[in-house]
């Protein structure tokens, strides 16, 4: 998986490319703990190039959503591929995430 982040004042955009699974989720967790500083109030995940997500990946997204809620920040998920949107629907994430399609 490739992680591309871009910070712009209090906004952070993260593009994920490839597979977010048991093997690669720790990479994203590390990236977030280094880059999702307290001053980030708008976090955007671009999943346009994400081909696969496992429950471990879903858990990282959920805990990040909780973190952003706690600081009254916003988390937006955009360019969600259909295959991954289906999974969000199954686990009810379509309702708790802010999704821009």
């Amino acid at each position, binding site marked *: 998986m490739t992680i591309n982040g871009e910070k712009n004042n209090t906004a952070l955009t993260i593009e994920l490319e490839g597979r977010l*699974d*048991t*093997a690669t989720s720790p990479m994203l967790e590390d990236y977030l703990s280094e880059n999702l500083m307290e001053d980030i109030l708008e976090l955007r995940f671009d999943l346009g190039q994400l*081909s*696969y*997500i*496992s*429950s*471990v990946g*879903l*858990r990282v997204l*959920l*805990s990040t*959503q*909780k973190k952003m*809620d706690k600081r009254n920040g916003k988390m937006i998920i955009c360019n969600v591929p259909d*295959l991954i949107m*289906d*999974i969000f629907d*199954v*686990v*009810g994430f379509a*309702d*708790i995430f802010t999704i821009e399609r």
Partner: protein
Amino acid sequence: MWELEIEAKTQYLEQVRAFVDGHLEMFDCPVKAKMQIDMAVEEIFVNISQYAYTPKTGKVTIRMEMTKEPLFVVLTFLDNGIPYNPLAKADPDVTLPAQEREIGGLGIYMVKNIMDDVAYAYQDGHNILKLRKKIELQE
């Protein structure tokens, strides 16, 4: 029927996936079904790797079968670790807001929803988990 016996360790997930995907590719499995099967396989294999033999390690046997007309993919996971029925756990409430959501329990719920049938049995010292998925081939 194909069979893979492998050490139940998360680091071998790639080999497990290659075994499953290799056979799915034999019949041009649609991308969506392949991703769902991969997800279920990852979930179950990782669960067995993390919990079945703790703190020791052990093996898992994965059997893969296919039936024709209708096309079903059947995957059976066997381990001889601690008896554990993953289906006994209550489903998470997927209607709760983010703050009240539990981080765990999603995986097996997902598996139950994306497979057509999931069954557990404990026989002769083995945990046996059988997953079935119907495949709709594209015209």
